[in-house]
Structure formats: structure tokens, C-alpha cells
């Protein structure tokens, strides 16, 4: 997250495809290629990737199956399926089981694929960001809850000065909530754009 380098992993059983891919995109992205699914799984565990591409037809495992396999551990990675020929079954599986982001057919159009990878990266970023935002929202709500508990404790004395104190605290809290609201509204509007 610290840098803007897009890290891409490409899995295909045919080595010439891997080489072509690397040659085509090495200038823009940090490209890793791999011809064995289990090696790909290991690479995913070792490095943080933003986008993963896989060929559909491979000897041991299909691309969709590979995506199914990595989904529990890497839910945020954008998955792109590349295939020479797609029958209907594969397409349906890709969407339902592999939750594939995009479907690209061979021979690929380099420009188009580049755009797909970039937008995949954006999706990945926003997923990661929204996950972080979600954590933040939860933290804020927790803090507010604790504040209310505290004020309830102060009020239980029944002293007039404590009422004045709580009133001013509540005003502060309202300001804080409005501030947070504005922040999240901005974030969500950006998400939906």
C-alpha cells in the first residue's frame, strides 16, 4: 500500500504465454509468472498481489478451480480468467464459483488487457480501503459507546454541575459524529462513482 507498483501474478501451463505476458507488461507492472498452481499458491502467500490472472485449461486444475482454491485466503485479489476457448459451462462456473472479475479471451488485446489489469488493481485497492474504513467505523462506534457509558456514570450522581458537564459533552459528541458522517459520506460517494 505504501507504493503504487501494481503486482500481477499470471498462471498458465504454456510457457510461451508466460514469456509473452511478461514481455508485454513488465514495463508497467511488477509481473510474476508461474506454470504450476501449487507454486502460484506459494507465491500468493509470500507476496502481496493486487491482481491474479489464470488460464482456464490446465492439466491438473482449471482456472476456476484455482480461483476457488485461493479465495478463502485472498478474498481481495482481483481474479481475471484468460482462455483460448470458452464454452458456456466454463463461463457460468467462472462467475458463480470463481467470482471472476473479468474474462479475457486469447489472443488477448494488449491495451484492453492492460486496462483490465489496472481496473482490477483499482477494485483491489477499494476493497482493501473499504475494509480498512469499515474497521475504522467500528472503532469510532466503540469509542462513542464507551463515551456514553461514561456519561451515564456521571449522570447517576444527580448533581446539577454534572448535568451541565454532560450537556456540554453531548454537544461535543454531536459535532464529532457530524464530522465522521461527512467523512464517510465522502468515502461512499467515491466508492459508488
Amino acid at each position, binding site marked *: 500500500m505504501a507504493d503504487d507498483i501494481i503486482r500481477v501474478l499470471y498462471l498458465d501451463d504454456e510457457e510461451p504465454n508466460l514469456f*509473452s505476458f511478461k*514481455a508485454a507488461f513488465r514495463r508497467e507492472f511488477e509481473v510474476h509468472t508461474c506454470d504450476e498452481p501449487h507454486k502460484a499458491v506459494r507465491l500468493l502467500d509470500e507476496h502481496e498481489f493486487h491482481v491474479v490472472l489464470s488460464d482456464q485449461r490446465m492439466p491438473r486444475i482449471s482456472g476456476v478451480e484455482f480461483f476457488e482454491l485461493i479465495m478463502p485466503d485472498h478474498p481481495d485479489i482481483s481474479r481475471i480468467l484468460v482462455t483460448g476457448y470458452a464454452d458456456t459451462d466454463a463461463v457460468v462456473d467462472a462467475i458463480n464459483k470463481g467470482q471472476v472479475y473479468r474474462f479475457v479471451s486469447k*489472443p488477448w488485446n494488449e491495451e484492453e488487457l492492460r486496462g483490465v489489469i489496472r481496473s482490477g488493481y483499482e477494485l483491489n485497492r477499494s476493497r482493501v480501503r473499504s475494509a480498512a474504513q469499515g474497521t475504522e467505523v467500528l472503532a469510532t462506534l466503540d469509542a462513542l459507546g464507551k463515551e456514553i457509558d461514561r456519561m451515564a456514570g456521571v449522570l447517576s450522581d444527580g448533581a446539577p454541575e454534572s448535568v451541565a458537564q454532560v450537556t456540554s459533552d453531548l454537544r461535543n459528541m454531536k459535532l464529532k459524529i457530524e464530522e465522521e458522517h461527512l467523512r464517510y459520506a465522502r468515502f461512499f460517494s467515491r466508492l459508488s462513482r
Partner: protein
Amino acid sequence: MCPPYGRVRMLRVLFCLMLPLWAGCGGGESVTVDALRLEAFEDATRMLRPEQVHLQRASLKGLDGERPNLGSSSSAWWIRVSGWQGAPRNARIVLDNPTLDSIDVFVLDGPRVLANATSGAALGREKDLIPTFEIPLNTAHELWFRVRSTKPVLLPFSLTRVDKAEVIRERRDLAVALYTGMVLAILIYNSFLAFSTGQRTYFSYIFVVLTVGLVQWGFNGYDRLLWGDVPWMAVNGLTVTGAFSGLSALMFARHFLEVRRYTPGWNRLIQILLGVYTAALGAALIGRPMLAYNLVNLGALSAPAMLILSIVSWRRGSPSAPWYFVAWLIFLVAVTMQALRDFGVLPSTQMTATFLPIGTVLEMLLLSFALGNRINQLKRSSDEANAKALAASLENERIVKEQNAELEARVRQRTEALAAANGELSAALEDLKGAQDQLIQTEKLASLGQMTAGIAHELNNPINYVQSNATSLNRDMEELIEIIEAHAAALAALAEGAPGAADMVERARDRARQLDLQFLMEESRQLIKGILEGADRTARIVGGLRVFGRMDGDELVEASLQDLLEASITVLGNRARSRARIEVNFEEGTPALWCQSGKLSQVFMNIVVNAVQATESRWPEAEDRLVSVQLTALSDGANAGEPTSLEIRIRDNGTGMDDTTRQRIFDPFYTTKDVGKGTGLGLSIVKGILDDHGAVIRVESALDKGTCFILTFPLHASGSKASKVA
């Protein structure tokens, strides 16, 4: 068999034959000179020696009657015989009982034994048939007999002149010979009948005759002529023949009276009596002659039992029972008379001695007539049955003739109806054929679809990297050109000695470093290599496609099966290869043959795809799935090893099939796939195509082992044509 008149005549003849017996026996009494006086005591220990018997005089008891009967026991009997004193020199003492096992004679003077002699059945001597003993010279001496026998100790002592004794023996021989002659006649006659009719009853009857005859021989001691040399038989002969006689009589009764049919309840009794006789034989075998003899006597209960059985059968309607009753009654009367004689109720004359043999002969004859009668009855009933059958068949013939006419009319009607139905069916068949053609077309399209998918995938991959590499190479080339141009400009500036030339060189070097010249050059080489590889692969696939010719093409082309198989597997390509391991093993230089190449490729693809699917259903991992394709040339060895046929084996290690499935796979519309997944026409089309090529397809399969399709293409006709064209 004899008519009734014949039977009467035979009886008369028999009666005449019997006369000499009576005549022979009639003069017997005159032989006896005087009645002897007998005294006896029993030696239960059987240990008493002749030297000691004079001490036992006190226990002697007088015996009365002409034929004293001491019964049967295992004791020895000592008998003092007196009354011979004063008899003439040529007088002899005769003990006319040949069944006594041993007879010892001692002439005693107090404890001294002056002379002794032995006789008896156990010795098996022919001269002992009528035991005859000389009388002592000195009238003061005592004559003692010691008798031991398992048979009843019956003691018909008499004093006879020596020449009369020989006469008795001659007459006895004559009587026995006559009896034997009659028995033999009956035996031979009935044996002949037995073998010609094959009736079981006859066989048991000839056994009855044989054994009854033997028993009579035994009573008279003549059995020692047969087995006098065998000591065991000399003692047990009478018992054994008696037991066999009883057994055969019972078996005969069972057959003759048809016990199972008329009196099934009696079968149990007959079995028990058979058991008694068998036990008697057993007892004789284990060396218990007394027990054996007593068991045979117990078995004699069967005589009255059979008589009652015959009455019962008679009342229940057995046609043979009256005959049997009469025959058996005669036998029983004869036996009873014999018993009465033995116990002294009837006078013991030679005449009464003939009752038993005559009774047995009459019994045998009557039974023989009865058997003949039975055979006649059987024949009559079978004649009647034949006549009935003939009448019935004549009647049948008439009915059949009548019905034939009617049938012909009906057949004509039915034929017309069938012709009409046939027309309808032909129309329906035409419709079905149309539908089938359509389905076959569908199946063709389906395999075309499979092919298209395979070809698309196979082609798109190399095209992809050719295209992509070209783009990348273009970019790399631009950068390389830029570096080259920078260097070229710097070199030109250096050559001209222009100011700033050193800077230009430095900039060009910087640029080369920046763009990583070494890497660019290496990458370019690799990219070009990839392009060449892709182009080559594309060319190969397209070349493979050309082998197929047109999918629909009916025209014959000369093609190599190896090329066709390779092309089919290439076209199936990743589709098959990524799902299972495909091993190929092609024999080098197999001859080409004339074929419809497109159709054959369809065949190969169909079978290989089926094979892959079968392995997928069995193994979860692709590495375990194996499909092997093998091509070999076969030779029948005739033309110097010239191949006569080509064989393709497509083997998989998939689920396999059971026999039912295996037999049906070539049936149209038979499929094991889910509804909608297959038309069930694939293999039936395969079969059709192979039939067109004169090829034979065989399938070997075992559940959970795999399947092997074996395709054999003959080379003879098309092969020679191909070689001529070539």
C-alpha cells in the same frame, strides 16, 4: 407263455416225474433191521474226554422214538447206543442226518478207548453223506457217539445191512438228481425269460429258485459237493443259503405282489425281515454260527407273514396275489409237514421226507406260471393300449384333415391382414428412418462442436503468443533502434570531431544502461523464438486438420491410420490431454489404406473422448487417468510376414462396463449418460462407419479395470488397391 391247457399238462408231467421219488423212498423202511436203544447226556462244557464218559453213566437218559430230537444248542451230546448186540456181521449203524456238524464214535471198554471214527458235515467229505459206522466186534464193549452241531441234533439212528446202506445212498442220489434236474429246468427256462423280458421280478424269481434249490441240497448234505473244501462253508453253508433264500423270497414278494402299490404299509415289515436275514449273514461272518442259525429260524416268520400279505393284496385287487397265495400255501404246508416229521408227529418214513422237496418244486412251478400270467397281462394291456392309440390316431387324422381346410381359409385371411399391416409398418419404418437420419445429423454436429472447441483452443494459444510477442518485439525494437541511433549519432559526431561528441557518447551509453540493452537483446531473441514456435505449432494443427478432409466427405482417400490418429488426438488436444494422460504407441511404417478419412477421424475422436470421460468418472486426479492408443500391423504369416490387417487398440483405465452394458453400447439410442448429455448414437455411428470400411470393432471391458476398444482394419482388398495406386 403256456395257455391254460398247457399248464394242466405240465402239472401232469410233473406228477409223473415225482413218482420215482416216492417209489425210491417207499422201500426204505425194510432196510432197518431193528430199532436201537439210545441213551444220552449233555456235556455243556464240551470238555469231556472219552476216557471219562464211563463215569457219567448215571446221568444217561433214555431217548424215545425213531428220530429223537435234542434241539439245537452249543453243547456236545454223548449218546450210548445199544441194541446192536447180536446183529449180523454185515450190519452197520447208520445216523441218517447229514447236517450234523461233527460225529465222533468211540468203542469203549470202561475208560479204555478201543477204536474210534469221525464223520459229520464239518469234514466236508462226500462219503459222510449218510454217516455209517461198523458195530463193535465184542458185544461186551460199549458204543458211544459224541455229536456237536449248530443245527438241530436230530438223531435218526438205524441198524442197516451194509448193502442196503449203499442202496439208500443210491436212491438218495437219484432223488436229489431228479430234484436238481427239475430245479435246473425251471431255473434255465426262467433265466431265459428273465433276459428276454428284462423284468425285474424274473430276476428275483430265479434267485428264489436257485437259493431254495441250494437249501434243499443243504438239507440232504449235498452242498458239500459244492464247497466241501471250504471249512467255513461246510459249517455255515446251510445257514448262508437259508438266509439268501429268505432274502430273495422277500425281494421277490416285494416285486411280485407290488407291495409299494397295493400294501405300502407292509414294506416296513419286509424291511425288518430283510434286516433279520442280513443280521444272520453278519453273525455267520463273525463266527457265531448258532446265532446265525437262530436268526434264520426267526426269519422263517416271513413265511406266514407273506401268506397273510398275499391275502391282503388279493383283497386289494392285486391280480398276482391269488397265484402267490396258492404257491406259498403249498410251500408252507410242505414246511409244516417237515417240522411235524422232525418232532415225531408224522412217521419218519422216506415218503414224508419227500414232502418238502416236492412242496418247493410245486411252489416254484406255480410262481413261474404266475409270472407268465403276469407277463401275458402286461402284453394284453399294452396291445389294448396300442389298439386304442391306433384308433385315436386315425380319428386324429380325420379331424386334422377337416381342420386343415378350415385353417387354409384362415391363413389366407390372416395373410391379407398381415400384408396390410406390413404396408403400415413399412410407412412407419420410413418415418423412423427419417427421424434417425436427423439424429445422426445431430450427432455429427455434436462431434463437429467438440472438434471446433478443441481446434479453437489449440489454435488460440499459439496465435496469442505470436501476436503478443510481435507487439512486445516491436516495442523492444524501437528501444533498440533508439539506442543504436544514439550510438550512431555519437559515432558520427566523434568521427567528425564535433564539439560535444563525448557528451553524446556518454548520453548514448546512459540510455543503453537505462533501457538495459543486454536484457532487451535477450528478450528480443526469446520473443522471436516464441513467434517461430507459435507459427510452427499453428502450421502443424492446420496440417492435421487437412488430413481430416471434409467431415461429411464420402469419397475415398488413401491415408495412413497413424496420421489420422495423430490428427485426431491433436485436434482433441488440450481438451483431452489436460483431462487424462494420453500415451501413443504407433508401429513404424504401417501401410496406408483407402478410407473415408473424415469419418474415421470422427470414429477415433469419439472413442478417445469416451475413454477420457470413463477415466474421469473413476479417478479424481488427472495423473491417475490413462488412455493409451496403439497401432500395430498384424500378419497371418501367409505372405512372408506381409501385414494383412491393422489393429488399433484404444485402452483406458476408467470405470469399465458390466456385460449388459458392453453388449448394448452399439445399440442406437443406448446411453449411460444423463438425459440430454448424449444422444446415444455416437458408438452406433462408429459401428456403421467401421462396417462401411469392412473393419471389425471388439470391446473388452471389466468393471473398475477399464475398457479396450480393438479396431481391426483388413488390408486385403483396399490394401492391394492402395499399393497399386502407390
